[in-house]
């Protein structure tokens, strides 16, 4: 996990998340916000699913497994 920085959310949003943590399957407000933002950023192409090193390693494994050559 990369280093963290603090940001501010409105009281209204935090309360809404806190009130529904169990329903949202999250252990904390931070965990939920991080997961939702990561998913959104990946979907819009602003955040990579893999680092370059991870993608090289996954590609190597997929070759090893025979899916790629």
């Amino acid at each position, binding site marked *: 996990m990369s280093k963290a920085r603090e940001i501010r959310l409105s009281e209204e949003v935090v309360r809404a998340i806190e009130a529904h943590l169990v329903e949202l399957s999250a252990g904390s407000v931070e965990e939920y916000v991080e997961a939702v933002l990561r998913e959104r950023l990946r979907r819009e192409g602003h955040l990579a699913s893999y680092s370059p090193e991870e993608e090289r390693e996954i590609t190597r494994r*997929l070759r090893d497994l025979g899916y790629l050559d």
Partner: protein
Amino acid sequence: MRKLALIGLDCADPVLLAELLPGLPTLRELAASGSFARLRSVDPPITIPAWMCMMTGKDPGELGVYGFRNRKDTSYAGLGVASSASFSAPAVWDLLGERGLRSILIGVPGTYPPKPVKGILVSCFLAPSTEVAFTYPATLREKVKALAGEYLFDAREFRTEDKARLVEEVVAMTKRRFALVRGLVSTEPWDFLAAVEIGPDRMHHAFFAHHDPRHPKHDPASPFRDALREYYQLLDQEIAALLSDLPSRTRVLVVSDHGVQRLEGGIALNEWLIRAGYLALKADSLEPGTRLGDLVREGLVDWSRTIAWGEGGYYGRIFLNVAGREPEGAIPSSEYEIVRTKLARELAAIPDEEGRPIGTRVLFPEEIYREVRGIAPDLLVYFGDLRFRSIGTVGWGRIHLRENDTGPDDANHAPYGILIDYPSEQKGGDRSILEVKDLILAHFDKEAS
């Protein structure tokens, strides 16, 4: 509300399973008391995209995902590994979540990086390691460790002749996965479970020749001739233990994404394209096994004289070098169909070493998909209807290869997987992998009414 548990066995094949069923009491009972159907996979019948096709009800063209690696753009080197971000269509668990139903998802290929779900998610073998965030919620990883110890996404160092170690590895992986599944279904709230075990696929690729007497590499004296059978017995025992942890009225689906067949050899796709005048390189002598992608990056493909190039793997993908689409396109767009049709005909006619036809099928994306999104291959090639691997590497000096270019491999994929539905009033027949999502939704619709 009756729960539904989907147990995924990657690569489980209807013919192989029918052969093994007499020694598998749990699966035999599920099939006999429920239904046992062949499940037609998508084209290509490959883990990615097949599992996500099953979970979304969308074909590869609709998803715009044609394999583990896809063209990100129309450049020659722009390939990217598929991830959960590649799949924008809602999966069945997203739709169930909108209805307030909770899911437990474990090992479903195409779920890394984990997306938020209503429920919990442990992602698949495409996770780089257990050091990254591989679960939703992120804190679930501690529970995974507590339940399964060192969690194994996949068999490590798969291409090996040390078969004894590989069996131990796959068995350990499977036991830990089922320990995790049992632990989570017993302690977490859920309505829908989807748990996929990748082990059968790994065992098929490593041990199919040891099992199948018709395989060209079969050795009846092999010490591993029963490895596949014994692994299925382990699976059967693990499934029995899991079922004992589920509420008695739980509906159970045992499914696979594709089947298996013996691998009889390989066709060097790019070697053939070079010989047939479709692909031109700037290098004269190459080491056997040179990757075309490396030559592309080194500027050693003469694009001005290249009509087409290929990607290898369990099936072949052909890309045409089209003016106005590729950076140095050599085919006028007005001649695209003429060239593609001629190439497809010639690929289909490639014979075996003895000059005999091998029954290659060449597929046109727009004819097999309801929609073609992203950048699809121009042609999909099933050499020998997938009895032959597509070898993408070059420098071999010949078209026909006996061995896989990435290491020992006994098997290729087959178009039919399995669907065991228990309990079910419907018997037999063939079903489509694209029906499974609606089958699951219909179950919960019925339960809610």
